[in-house]
């Protein structure tokens, strides 16, 4: 991993990879959108409202995935002082917050016609709301100090402590009685969802992941250049 620790090398590598991940993200999202709106069937119980699943579930998966990336990056920042790890966490937090908000909002739009309510304070919904606040806390904390490295350190500790929430979200539908349906794709005995719905869902999820990967590289590049800018303007101030 330390081979990519050099910021300049990261930027060059990211610039080479970005056209591919970005292009594939557009392709996967385009195909996924087409399949989920035109090809996949209506559900025999939920009718056409089931199409909300194709944006809700990938957004919710990304909410958990991005938090896991932040926690892993925070651990390597605290333990090995990997210079890029803090930047990956900083660059990812607002994106994770966006995905979590999207999961909550589309879930609400799905819950109203199916459950008869926009919101319930049950284990799954509440734990995802906590995740959203963890993201906001991370963003606030990482920018709370004049010395950015102190902010990053505090945010990294928050990210690691808050990671306990990730398994709680995943298993909340098994541990507590909830309106939310249990897992139907990621389960030990294999998916219980029909292939005609599974494929559009997986292609959408792949699109979301590629989108995050591309956006994250752009944002880390932005963080690297911002650090360089701060150092240079400080040096320019010293020179005068």
């Amino acid at each position, binding site marked *: 991993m330390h081979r990519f620790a050099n910021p300049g090398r990261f930027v060059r590598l990211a610039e080479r990879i970005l056209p591919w991940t970005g292009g594939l993200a557009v392709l996967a999202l385009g195909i996924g959108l087409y399949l989920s709106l035109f090809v996949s069937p209506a559900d025999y119980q939920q009718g*056409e409202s089931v199409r909300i699943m194709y944006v809700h579930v990938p957004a919710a998966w990304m909410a958990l995935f991005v938090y896991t990336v932040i926690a892993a990056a925070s651990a390597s920042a605290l333990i090995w002082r990997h210079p890029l790890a803090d930047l990956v966490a900083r660059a990812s937090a607002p994106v994770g917050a966006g995905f979590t908000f999207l999961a909550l909002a589309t879930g609400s739009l799905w819950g109203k016609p199916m459950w008869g309510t926009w919101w319930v304070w049950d284990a799954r919904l509440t734990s995802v709301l906590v995740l959203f606040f963890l993201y906001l806390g991370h963003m606030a904390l990482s920018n709370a100090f004049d010395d950015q490295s102190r902010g990053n350190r505090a945010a990294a500790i928050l990210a690691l402590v808050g990671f306990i929430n990730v398994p709680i979200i995943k298993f909340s539908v098994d541990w507590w009685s909830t309106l939310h349906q249990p897992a139907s794709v990621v389960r030990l005995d294999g998916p219980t969802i029909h292939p005609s719905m599974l494929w559009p869902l997986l292609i959408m999820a792949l699109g979301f992941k590629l989108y995050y990967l591309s956006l994250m590289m752009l944002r880390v590049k932005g963080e690297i250049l*911002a650090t360089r*800018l701060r150092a240079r303007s400080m040096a320019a101030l010293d020179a005068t």
Partner: protein
Amino acid sequence: MEQVQTFLAMGGYGFFVWPAFALTAVILIGMLVTTLRHLRAVQSDLARLQVPEQTQAREVQQ
């Protein structure tokens, strides 16, 4: 025309399905646009800072 209307109605769930997809598009595109804007701003600031730095260095050499 009727086909389009049936499609947009989404079996009576259009009021919920379309906002869900629209919101997804708004958030994904919005995050990309803010990221690109921030990147451009930092890049142009860096470029502005680099030009006087080089002229300064030349002055010092002279």
